[in-house]
């Protein structure tokens, strides 16, 4: 197995160090790294000059749609985790809305094993809360938790667990194995037929509106339910200013709530839909400029705990059509780090640096998902999940050039800052020089 001696990398907090990756661990840091590399008898040491690069703990995504089983035309576990590696991720949580639904130990173990076999990143399957995502009966959450996949995050994502009694039961039940329910907050009756954010733009475009209150009402209900039963609850892809206020209030009250925001909700607004381009159709929808400011503020002040991609690949025919007929969702694994850099790190008026990026895109998502060994500090003895980023690079998004099997990015032709140069997963280079390391080179 190859050792990697990374020299001159900047750690998230700003100091410069060398890192030696050996036997799946960070074997040494600082001046020890080169010394130990020299002393490793028989090991092949690959030196990587990381001067000018930032070293981050491998990124962890709490919200990824890998589409397998069922929609391998859009993405597979292998293609999705390869894209994840290129985006700097060493762990992804695979959402449950596959075909069949990941609502049994059998399906979550299958997805977990596909991830292990592919070897690009750790795949943590998310289990469905209800059988078939139907919102009627709890799935066998305990069986999924004690399976080889060791599921800790449960979600009917794509659909909301809207029945308040069922939500209460789920919140209570997962306490037995330290699980968390990740809620896709969308009151279904208020969003029947909804196509975009309800407001000035939807009124002009004549597209049925998805009102902010449909998200906020469910979040308000669920934080109160979580308080009542003493459970933790996680809010998926929070998108409105009102939702930020509710979560801020809940946290001040001591409720165990965590929340995520997507890169696209940090960057894009409903104005993008004026051309009826379905690449901007997503659920929850793109909101207003005020909402974008509010979610950025929330991420900065810690109200929003993490960034999660909601990477949602779709084949081109599901986007190359009328807006109403198009599928909802956009890819995100390969653009997430750059978008967060642009929206947060590069904004000098914000108190948000690489340490905050490492916290919100690695350490905290790993903690919410109870993933041991991911999101750890870059220190001797820790697992060797490391991402090297060139913060000064700029690149232009070419949908066909991305590694995901689908091309539905909303950032086509956009120039973005920061590029992942290398990713190490369990000490193995999955990405070097920005290129995925396929087959024998890995």
């Amino acid at each position: 197995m190859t050792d990697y001696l990374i020299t001159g990398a900047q750690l998230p907090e700003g100091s410069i160090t060398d890192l030696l990756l050996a036997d799946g661990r960070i074997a040494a840091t600082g001046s020890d790294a080169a010394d130990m590399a020299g002393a490793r008898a028989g090991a092949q040491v690959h030196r990587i000059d990381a001067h000018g690069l930032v070293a981050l703990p491998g990124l962890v995504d709490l919200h990824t749609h890998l589409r397998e089983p069922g929609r391998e035309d859009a993405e597979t576990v292998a293609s999705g985790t390869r894209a994840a590696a290129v985006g700097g991720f060493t762990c992804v949580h695979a959402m449950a809305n596959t075909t069949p639904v990941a609502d049994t130990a059998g399906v979550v173990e299958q997805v977990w094993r596909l991830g292990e076999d592919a070897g690009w990143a750790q795949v943590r399957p998310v289990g469905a809360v209800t059988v078939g995502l139907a919102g009627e009966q709890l799935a066998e959450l305990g069986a999924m938790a004690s399976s080889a996949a060791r599921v800790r995050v449960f979600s009917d994502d794509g659909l909301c667990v809207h029945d308040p009694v069922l939500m209460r039961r789920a919140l209570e039940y997962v306490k037995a194995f330290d699980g968390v329910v990740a809620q896709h907050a969308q009151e279904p009756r208020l969003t029947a037929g909804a196509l975009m954010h309800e407001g000035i733009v939807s009124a002009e475009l004549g597209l049925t509106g998805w009102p902010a209150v449909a998200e906020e009402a469910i979040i308000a209900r669920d934080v109160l339910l979580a308080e009542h039963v003493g459970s933790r609850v996680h809010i998926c892809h929070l998108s409105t200013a009102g939702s930020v206020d509710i979560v801020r209030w809940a946290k001040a009250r001591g409720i165990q709530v965590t929340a995520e925001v997507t890169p696209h909700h940090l960057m894009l607004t409903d104005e993008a839909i004026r051309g009826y381009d379905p690449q901007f159709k997503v659920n929850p929808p793109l909101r207003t400029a005020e909402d974008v400011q509010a979610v950025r503020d929330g991420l900065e002040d810690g109200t929003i705990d993490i960034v999660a991609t909601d990477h949602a690949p779709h084949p081109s025919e599901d986007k190359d059509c009328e807006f109403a007929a198009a599928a909802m969702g956009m890819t995100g694994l390969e653009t997430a780090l750059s978008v967060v850099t642009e929206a947060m790190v590069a904004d000098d008026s914000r108190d948000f640096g690489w340490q905050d990026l490492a916290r919100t895109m690695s350490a905290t998502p790993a903690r919410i998902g109870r993933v041991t060994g991911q999101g750890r500090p870059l220190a001797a003895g820790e697992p060797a999940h490391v991402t090297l980023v060139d913060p000064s690079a700029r690149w232009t998004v070419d949908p066909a050039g991305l590694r995901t099997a689908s091309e539905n990015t909303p950032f086509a032709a956009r120039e973005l800052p920061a590029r992942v140069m290398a990713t190490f997963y369990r000490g193995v280079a999955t990405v070097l020089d920005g290129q995925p390391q396929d087959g024998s080179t890995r």
Partner: protein
Amino acid sequence: MRHLLSAADLSREEAITVLDTAATMAATQSREIKKLPALRGLTVVNLFFEDSTRTRISFEAAAKRLSADVINFAAKGSSVSKGESLKDTAQTLQAMGADAVVIRHSASGAPHRLATSGWIDAPVVNAGDGMHQHPTQALLDAFTMRRHLMPEGGAGAGLDGKRVVIVGDVLHSRVARSNVDLLHTLGAEVTLVAPPTLLPIGASTWPCRISYDLDAAIAEQAPDAIMMLRVQRERMSSAGGGFFPSAAEYSRRYGLDAARFEALPGHALIMHPGPMNRGLEISARAADSDRSTIVEQVANGVAVRMAVLYLVLAGNEGTPS
């Protein structure tokens, strides 16, 4: 004019050009031989993903009176219901040599997609898309108003200072959106009247007044024209959204009944885009009065659509005599 997708895309100058061209077209329609050779050899495709016999016939008559060939393509069950996709249909029409496509679609923005996605080169005319726009309806409404309300039939003029009240289901109405845009561009003052449930969130930013009270709007505006929008009875059921309690209550509060008809200024035009629900949004008294332009609107529709087809297909060569 490359395409006609939205009334909001028309400048005042462009809108007046369409209306003036329509006036020229209308003049030819009183001749014994109505047919003009302007579009001879060109093919206009009527691509209707949503049933509308009235609008299709109007466009068909317009194209034929300009000597164009017409292909009617009724594609019920669009890609919204996973039939043939809009893209494939567009490419089929392109291969057939369509010179212009008139599209009607239940999905808002479908004409915009057709015009801007690179699927087809031909000019696209929006004949009504979802809850978005129906620009030729707004043009024919403006044409009708101008003819009656402006001096000397309104040639070269807008609708400056004219007060128009539009009543009904604004939320679901492409006619209301198109009319607000175009009438504002032409200088008219528009008041929308509807129950609050049938006004979109965001309408407060539109260039018009909004009222929930039809009697007050009639009294305050003393409108030069009042336009009653069609209200679908199913909107009152809970499955239809439960937008109002009953047809009777809607009619009492928002219908143009005899008393409200009497309260209008003597010259006020009574307009309706059709088809009417008599007894719901409009009384027979109003619909059949001599101030009603409802039948004339149909005739003017052909002239306006002739003008639009002419301008998108032969536009820069001047107006035919």
